[in-house]
């Protein structure tokens, strides 16, 4: 079976202006959302706070839970349903006082007063102090920074510096759009999401390198053709692999997204966006950057 015929020759490179507009629009939407909301929506891992996951034996809704908890002074309080269940909720409180051990017990007894005794199960309690949150945020940013740096060095060594620049631009593009998608859909950034971002970086890079590898090979084979032609040909030659691998990865990420349960839900969402954007960027961002670099070099050479 074949999805892409061997002699397929789609003019990807010719559509790079359109791609530029699409990318710019996606990034701008993300940035606009981030600006309006005043930065990313951090979960308790990074912002600090307390999270209590409660399961009820009967279905209920956030408003009812809030009113059941109105007796305790919790400061700002957010109640969200967990996954698709109507009987499982996340209660998030800003409070991180030392008297915390009492908090989950207080919440449980307040809820049991409204619902029935024994119908409330506290399944998870997470408390992160503000200092720890700040440290974790720093560590997360450092991880992304060093990963990118390592990649830059590795690709410069195995390929050329311009390839490394193209790959890094594509990576920033992917992470930015995914970050924007999180903001637009109002999803919280937590520790596992940093892991997802790094997985996206790894995946997108994987994709980009395979196209680059083919460009490098074709550069040796076809001296006479223009650089633009070679890039386009390389994208076409690797197209069926790109689609197939993205397809299988999307299959499992979708499975995770649908079946993985609430805790893994946001992680899978990040991966879903990341895999789609990563595939797109290796064709429409990483490769055109190479062409742009080549054209500027030529322009500079003729000026001299």
């Amino acid at each position, binding site marked *: *079976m074949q999805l892409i015929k061997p002699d397929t020759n789609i003019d990807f490179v010719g559509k790079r202006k359109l791609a530029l507009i699409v990318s710019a629009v996606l990034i701008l939407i993300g940035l606009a959302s981030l600006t309006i909301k005043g930065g990313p929506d951090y979960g308790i891992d990074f912002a600090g706070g307390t999270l209590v996951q409660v399961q009820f034996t009967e279905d209920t809704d956030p408003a009812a839970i809030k009113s059941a908890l109105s007796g305790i002074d919790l400061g700002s309080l957010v109640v969200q349903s967990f996954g698709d269940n109507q009987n499982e909720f996340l209660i998030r409180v800003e409070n991180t006082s030392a008297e915390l051990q009492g908090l989950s017990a207080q919440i449980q007894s307040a809820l049991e007063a409204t619902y029935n005794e024994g119908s409330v199960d506290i399944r*998870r309690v997470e408390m992160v102090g503000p200092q*720890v949150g700040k440290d974790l945020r720093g560590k997360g940013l450092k991880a992304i920074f060093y990963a990118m740096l390592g990649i830059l060095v590795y690709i410069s060594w195995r390929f050329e510096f311009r390839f490394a620049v193209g790959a890094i631009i594509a990576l920033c593009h992917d992470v930015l759009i995914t970050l924007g998608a999180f903001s637009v859909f109002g999803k919280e950034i937590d*520790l596992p999401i940093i892991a997802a971002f790094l*997985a996206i970086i790894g995946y997108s890079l994987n994709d980009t390198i395979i196209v680059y590898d083919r460009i490098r090979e074709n550069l040796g084979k076809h001296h006479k053709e223009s650089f633009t032609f070679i890039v386009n040909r390389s994208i076409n030659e690797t197209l069926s692999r790109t689609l197939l691998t993205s397809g299988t990865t999307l299959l499992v990420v979708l499975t995770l997204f649908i079946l993985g349960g609430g*805790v893994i839900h946001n992680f899978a969402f990040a991966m879903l966006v990341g895999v789609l954007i990563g595939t797109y960027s290796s064709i429409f961002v990483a490769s055109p950057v190479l062409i742009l670099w080549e054209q500027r070099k030529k322009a500079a050479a003729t000026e001299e």
Partner: protein
Amino acid sequence: MSNSLKLRGGLVVFCLLLSLFAMAPTLMRDSLPQWWLDTFDPIHLGLDLQGGMHLVLGVDVDKAVESRIDTVIDQTETQLREKDIIFKRIERRQGDRMVVLIYDEEEGVKVDNLMAESYPSLEAETITGVGGYIEKHYRLGDNEIANVKDYAVRQALETMRNRVDQFGVSEPTLQRQSGNRILIQLPGVKDPDRAISLLGKTARLEFKIVAEDVNVQDAIAGKLTDGTQLLYERNTNRATGAVTETPLVVYDKTVLTGDLLSDANVRIDTRFNEPYVAIDFNAVGAKRFDQITAANVGNRMAIVLDDTVYSAPVIRERIAGGSAQISGAFSSQEATDLAIVLRAGSLPAPVKILENRTVGPSLGQDSIDKGIKSILIGGLLVIVAIAVYYQLSGVVAITALVLNLVFISAMLSMFGATLTLPGLAGIVLTVGMAVDANVLIFERVREELRLGKAPKLALEAGYGKAFLTIIDANLTTLLAALVLFQFGTGPVRGFAVTLSIGIIASLFTAIFVSRVIFDFFLQGRNVKRLSI
């Protein structure tokens, strides 16, 4: 069969057998002999999967420095009095310095000499203060402060370890983290609130003499005479269980501390049929207890734990033998926990909970079930897609994929790595990406076949050309995973581990194992057409 193929086939079979051997304890723990379980542990599950408690505690090291200065002040005060050196006041300032207020230079020299002799490590400084007094400042050196802080954290860790051991949790983890932080992981802990109260208690046990001549009402109004302090006595009504607090004024000076304990046990008071904690002093403590009780017959002695008075019995006679009891209408669990913390020793400084993640066992099981379901269904979808697309060659890739999963599980068990929920996600992700290597190879083989090459040659060329591409692509992902491992914490680290293991395993199965399978089926045959 060629020798090379025998060798390579043998290696694959060996790896498979070893993996199954390593996985057995995870899959069928109960039916295996002991030596087998001793060789390979079952896969460790992270706290998010098996349920349990993850705590980060911060030791208030500044308090440790303060209390060190307080000790020096106590001892110096005694020494100054013994040597008849005249001074106005001695006090602690800014947490890390002791100040002695004196009237003239002559006494100042005596103080300096005394201090230089007793505490050579203190840095001295003289300031002529307001009102004609001379202030002698003694400050802990920076090195000394660092030592005190470091010691406080180490001792806190030691104390925590003692407490956790007595609490009875299987396979607890206690680690010192950067600075003044201590990480504690208690897998499968049943009562998280009890664990927190047990670990968080400073458990500073002090004995103080009650100042009977001071008016308690004045003290409450804020008028305290020098050398006394106001504490509250905790009383539990036996009938109703209601807790009330009674104010009590005691002398500042701690006559005896819990450091001199040798043992603490729960006993039952037969009069009220309620538990109390019996404590035994060591030799030094017993002697001091003897002296104190002898000197204070008729007075009341307050037993103070973390600034709360538990009881204040009247000393009726001199008590030799070095035992005492702490009663206070405890429940039997309260008494047990009190005995535990007293036996384990007090913390050198108070601790604060900086991070607490507690996952109930039911949620953990849910996560495992959903994770495994995702792997199975995701894997099945990939298998169908690959089989449809590459036919028989696809079956080879699928075999490699299944082996990949087996190897990943085996490596997790062999390296003693911890499987977390993001780690499970990492495995699912590897399943998706593992086929990539085979896809790359197969697409290359198809290209070579289109150029008119014979199947065997096309395979040869396909594997050869795809090899470097695969290595480049996977090494960069591995790089990202390693960075993640370095900077990640807890569950994120688990993700980095399974991702790294997954990449290594998939390189092996996709490049090496799948090739062995091809060679095995193609050997000695003149194949005209490749099912790819």
